[in-house]
């Protein structure tokens, strides 16, 4: 697997011709988008002005002009960047992913399957909308791995019958083969109860968590502070969560800087990183050659593929081949 430095070199050297061509396309698109936004804003403002001129009213209808304008702008933006987005994924993301390890395969419009998401047991509640993109599959140091961007939502209806979408999870979802045999289920969630209610009340609330297995208290204070663990076999949960793995998960949480959810189910480790945004998307109003943008793609990819190395999933010290 290539290092971040090597990938950065690859991005700016090997991909430079593609980046340069796409950068021209991006500049033209940005101008086009600004023009469309200006036109839509003008139309919305004219609507509001006409309403004011003839009816002396700034009311719900005026607000509707703004909302219609925003929806129109979002739709047009999505429509005009479609080709550029596809080209970015095929000419930049695909070679970049293949450069990390040639066993990796990239499918820009596919996702990790919903059954793999549900199997993890990390998120409860009914799923009404399951979307995502940028599926990467492969084998790193003989460990099968796949990850993709996911946006999982539920839909609720209020008393008036209006439906509202709420996000269950949005971010990077990684599934990898785990290197120890186990039969039980262990689920690790961010510890929000202890953070809000303190140690005593927080742990009492955690132990009463409905729909979850038994609360497992672990012998690592820092880990206990950061996470809450549920499992149906306290011995096997500790067999999986050795002191070393707990430290590695803490390091991972620190390096990611977002909430992480981890579960061990069906011989696999499932990791959900709540970035709360769609990763691996091209920028339109900033240069593709911008260092920060380049690093955001490289860091996210390196983190997902690097899970194998970071958590030492390739160590075969146990009887599992």
């Amino acid at each position, binding site marked *: 697997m290539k290092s971040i430095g090597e990938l950065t070199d690859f991005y700016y050297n090997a991909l430079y011709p593609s980046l340069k061509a796409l950068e021209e396309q991006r500049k033209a698109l940005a101008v086009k988008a600004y023009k469309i936004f200006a036109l839509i804003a003008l139309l919305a403002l004219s609507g509001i002005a006409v309403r004011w001129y003839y009816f002396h009213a700034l009311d719900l209808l005026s607000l509707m002009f703004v909302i219609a304008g925003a929806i129109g702008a979002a739709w047009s933006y999505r429509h005009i960047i479609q080709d550029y987005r596809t080209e970015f994924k095929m000419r930049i993301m695909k070679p970049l992913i293949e450069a990390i390890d040639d066993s990796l395969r990239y499918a820009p419009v596919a996702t990790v399957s919903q059954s793999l998401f549900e199997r993890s047991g990390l998120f409860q509640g009914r799923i009404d909308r399951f979307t995502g993109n940028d599926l990467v599959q492969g084998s790193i140091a003989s460990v099968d791995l796949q990850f993709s961007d996911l946006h999982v939502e539920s839909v609720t209806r209020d008393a008036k019958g209006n439906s509202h979408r709420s996000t269950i999870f949005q971010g990077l979802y990684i599934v990898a083969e785990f290197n*120890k*045999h186990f039969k039980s289920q262990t689920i690790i969630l961010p510890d929000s109860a202890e953070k809000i209610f303190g140690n005593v009340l927080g742990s009492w609330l955690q132990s009463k968590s409905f729909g979850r297995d038994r609360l497992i*208290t*672990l*012998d690592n204070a820092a880990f206990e502070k950061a996470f809450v663990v549920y499992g149906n076999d*306290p*011995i*096997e*949960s*500790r*067999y999986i969560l*050795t*002191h*070393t793995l707990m430290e590695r998960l803490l390091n991972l949480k620190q390096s990611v800087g977002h909430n992480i959810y981890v579960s061990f189910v069906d011989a696999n480790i499932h990791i959900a990183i709540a970035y709360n945004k769609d990763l691996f998307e091209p920028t339109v109003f900033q240069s593709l050659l911008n260092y920060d943008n380049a690093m955001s793609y490289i860091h996210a990819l390196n983190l997902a593929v690097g899970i194998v190395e970071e958590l030492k999933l390739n*160590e*075969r*010290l*146990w*009887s599992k081949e």
Partner: protein
Amino acid sequence: MPFLIAVGVIALILILMYNALIARKNQVDNIFAGVDAALKKRFDLIPNLIASVQEYMTHEKELLSNITKLRTEGLKPNLSDTEKMALDQQVTSALGTLMISVENYPDLKANENIINLQRTLNETESQIAAARRAYNQAVTDYNNIIEMFPTNYMASWMNLTRKEVFVIDEHERENINVKELFNAS
């Protein structure tokens, strides 16, 4: 009426305290059964391990016979939990020494059967370590409840006494890289 309510509330509190104490006590027993199962698994590995190494390891006869002796003792019926815990420490230490001695025999170190046995032993040791940690947590919860007010009164009435935890070695806490130790790739 208020008297009856007060009696009812006190009875409910007593029942909840009693049940909480019994739940903690049973939790310790259940997890010790898990520890016991993991220890038995390791005892089952020993004959195969000794048979595989003894023809090579001419200088460690005493160590090998000590391990066999510890196994025989460990399989005796009616051992108390404390005795089992003491034996566990001795077996862990003796097997650790044996595995390090394997390093002195290149033929043995490269033997496929030994490599497989090492991996299985490593797995069993990890399971025992996990079982010990689970047991220690269950015992800590149990010791806490029998010493805390007001459950301590009921615990002493029920003759519940403190239980001992496993001593976890520092090296185990640090979870040393066994691959490096055995140099087995």
